């Protein structure tokens, strides 16, 4: 992806693939012959209508799309009311990573599983409320690196790009001139090589 653009999912985007790999509860509305293997708690060959399972989001989305629904999708618990209440109370206090690493992305998909706009609203509310926290984190050069563990992936991207920009600005303010540097990949290649070499030392 272009380094300067903000995240937007596309067919090849790694984050979107990983977000759609998250598991989502659903209920089978029809029998699915030979699909018993989707249910780890049984040895039966076929999957019976009425079975409730957690399946990867990509499958739930496909199987619930269109006029003929194979499964009825349900909201993952982190988007249900109890969790929404926690976010409403104080979104900044929440370890969003523990909710889900792809909180917003997953949320943007599953919000349609609920007829009301509650999930949609809580996604916006959470993002907007936590912005100041992310901004302060990005601006604070010596902030504890473990703090970003509490961010979801989208927030981490924001934090990271903001933090890099801030560091560059601080360097510019203090230094007489930015040195020309070896390319990123070249540096990484060196580092890794050193590690590899060490293994044989």
């Amino acid at each position, binding site marked *: *992806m272009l380094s300067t653009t903000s995240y937007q999912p596309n*067919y*090849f*985007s*790694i*984050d979107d*693939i*990983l977000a759609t*790999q998250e598991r989502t509860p659903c209920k*089978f509305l*029809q*029998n*699915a*012959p*030979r*699909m018993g293997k*989707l249910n780890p708690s049984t040895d039966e060959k076929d999957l019976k209508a009425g079975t409730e399972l957690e*399946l*990867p989001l*990509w*499958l739930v989305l*496909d*199987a619930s799309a269109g006029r*003929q629904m*194979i499964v009825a999708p349900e909201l993952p618990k982190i988007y249900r009311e109890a969790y929404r209440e926690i976010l409403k109370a104080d979104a900044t206090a929440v370890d969003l990573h523990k909710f889900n690493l792809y909180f917003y992305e997953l949320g943007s998909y599953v919000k349609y599983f609920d007829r009301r706009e509650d999930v949609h609203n809580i996604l916006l509310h959470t993002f907007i409320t936590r912005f100041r926290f992310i901004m302060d984190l990005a601006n604070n050069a010596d902030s504890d690196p473990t703090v970003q563990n509490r961010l979801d992936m989208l927030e981490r991207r924001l934090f990271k790009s903001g933090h890099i920009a801030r560091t560059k600005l601080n360097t510019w303010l203090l*230094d*007489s*001139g*930015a*040195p*020309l*540097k*070896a*390319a*990123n*990949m*070249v*540096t*990484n*290649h*060196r580092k*890794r*090589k050193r590690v*590899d070499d060490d293994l044989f030392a």
Partner: protein
Amino acid sequence: MFAEKACNLIKELSRCEEVLPPYHTELVKEVCTEIKQLHEQNKEDGAIVANESSIAGYANALYPTLRIGSSAVKRNVRCLLAYHYNRLKTLRTMRWEFGSILPQDIKTNLSSDEIEWFTKYSRSFAKYMTSIGENGLNLCLDLRPPKSLYIEVKCLMDYGKFELSDGTILLLKKDSRHYLPRSECEELITQGVFQHIV
């Protein structure tokens, strides 16, 4: 679960940003096998659904299975292509940073298709650069705005002979220091041969 292996390919990439992990030939092969099997099965099921149903196909008992099966194929293919696509993106950046010749240990991490792609890309890119203006323009240079004409650099390795544009030949040894025109050493800085001393 379907497409688990395919997703592992993606996880492998997500674990190492900006470095290229070794091409996972075996896992790719396994994913291809899964796709092939699912695809064959879908074709069979699809034929049954199409033949048996006097009414709409979705009334058929196998219809849900078919839907799941085709979703699994789609997912597998997406992961497989995304794995290769993102590797090409990294390779592309390597062309800009390392130049047209890759270090041997990076080359060993590539599939033969990838090496072929790199050569092709390298050629197109070079052709494009030659086409700019009357004399061509090397886009891998002038990466930052110029600050001063001359800069001090330290050589990080025994590089050997290096010819300046005026014909002067320098012998670049590890830890030797040089005061050179910025334009002449930028490429070697990018490639990590020189370190710019501020």
